[in-house]
């Protein structure tokens, strides 16, 4: 394969990853890393480094529109970010100590979890419990829900649990080059009592900063190869933009199932790579 062929192939793969990801509501990183390693033969460390940079691009793009629509709970984002950023630095550091096989195994587990989380029955948000920390930090919020045509206000509970989960999401982001939204959003929604739209918006808001922390570590370490990272960043962002513009009636079950199948196949392949 020539350098041009490689670039075009990675651009195409990343575009599809960004497109599929935005249609089902996850970032592209979770598909880009398996695709780069399994299809293009890139080492997992270099694939993770390229992916984490693209995560900044997609999440910042999405965050910009959520923030201007006032759906993002910026206070909550700032508070949980402290935990995700510490986690991201931890993860980016751990990545240097874990072997390539170990990374394949951990990635396979997260892929499997993501696939499962997309097909499991949806839980019901709990009744909000009083949370002194959330009161003191004035985390409770409200936003205008366009589809309901009314202002939705909510109270935040279990802030400490949110911080703990945000740390774990940050570690997985720094370690695996993904956004980590798939870990945070269910907890923010079900345990902390935040409406799903505000969860998605706030999670996206945090992911840019989280990914920037780990990307800085990877970049300074010399792991971000311009030749690989450039087509990944451009492809994933363009794919996500296309996905967002198609969003209207496209969010249906068949796309979800295709996506789950892709995740499951990737999980098995990465598991095999790790065990070999």
């Amino acid at each position, binding site marked *: 394969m020539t350098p041009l062929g490689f670039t075009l192939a990675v651009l195409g793969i990343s575009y599809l990853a960004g497109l599929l990801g935005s249609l089902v509501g996850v970032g592209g990183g979770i598909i880009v890393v398996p695709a780069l390693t399994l299809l293009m033969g890139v080492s997992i460390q270099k694939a993770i480094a390229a992916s984490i940079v693209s995560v900044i691009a997609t999440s910042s793009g999405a965050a*910009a529109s959520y923030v*201007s629509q006032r759906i993002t709970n910026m206070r909550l984002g700032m508070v949980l970010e402290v935990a995700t950023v510490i986690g991201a*630095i931890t993860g980016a550091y751990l990545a240097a100590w874990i072997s390539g096989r170990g990374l394949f195994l951990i990635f396979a587990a997260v892929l499997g979890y993501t696939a499962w989380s997309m097909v499991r029955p949806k839980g019901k948000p709990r009744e909000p419990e009083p949370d002194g920390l959330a009161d003191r930090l004035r985390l409770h919020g409200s936003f205008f829900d366009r589809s309901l045509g009314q202002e939705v206000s909510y109270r935040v509970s279990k802030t400490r649990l949110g911080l703990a989960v945000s740390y774990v999401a940050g570690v997985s982001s720094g370690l695996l080059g993904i956004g980590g939204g798939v870990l945070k959003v269910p907890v923010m929604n079900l345990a902390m009592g935040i409406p799903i739209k505000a969860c998605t918006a706030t999670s996206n808001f945090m992911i840019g900063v989280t990914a920037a922390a780990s990307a800085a570590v990877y970049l300074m370490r010399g792991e971000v190869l311009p030749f690989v990272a450039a087509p990944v960043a451009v492809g994933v962002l363009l794919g996500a933009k296309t996905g967002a513009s198609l969003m209207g009636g496209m969010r249906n079950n068949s796309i979800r199932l295709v996506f789950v199948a892709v995740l499951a196949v990737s999980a098995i392949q990465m598991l095999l790579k790790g065990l070999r």
Partner: protein
Amino acid sequence: MTAPTGKRAATAEDAISAILRLGVSASLLLIGTGSVLSFTRRGGYGSGAAEVARLAGPGGSFPRTLSWLLGGLGHLDGQAVIVAGLLLLIATPVMRVAVSLVVFARERDRVYLAITATVLALLLLSFALGRAG
């Protein structure tokens, strides 16, 4: 949120949104331009499978000193332009946090000023940590 008193909160949100949008677009433009330069200019990417192995190989690491970057930008080296784009992309969320810091400082919100300053410090630390690691 805390029923913001009209204008100031509105401008903060718009400023944050604008920074994110501009940062992403400008960095993508740099990354795209750098890629085109790498393919078209002498001294950029070579050809053949061996070159792919070199550029994307597991042993690959690229020069990451500031003088390499500035020198490369000086003579429009494609990879240096891509790296400038990558740096701008990483800096975009950092700038967003810096703007929030100013907003909380203006509102004299000490708790959030401290929280935001912590996040900013951690982000700056991550650059230093990567360098050391």
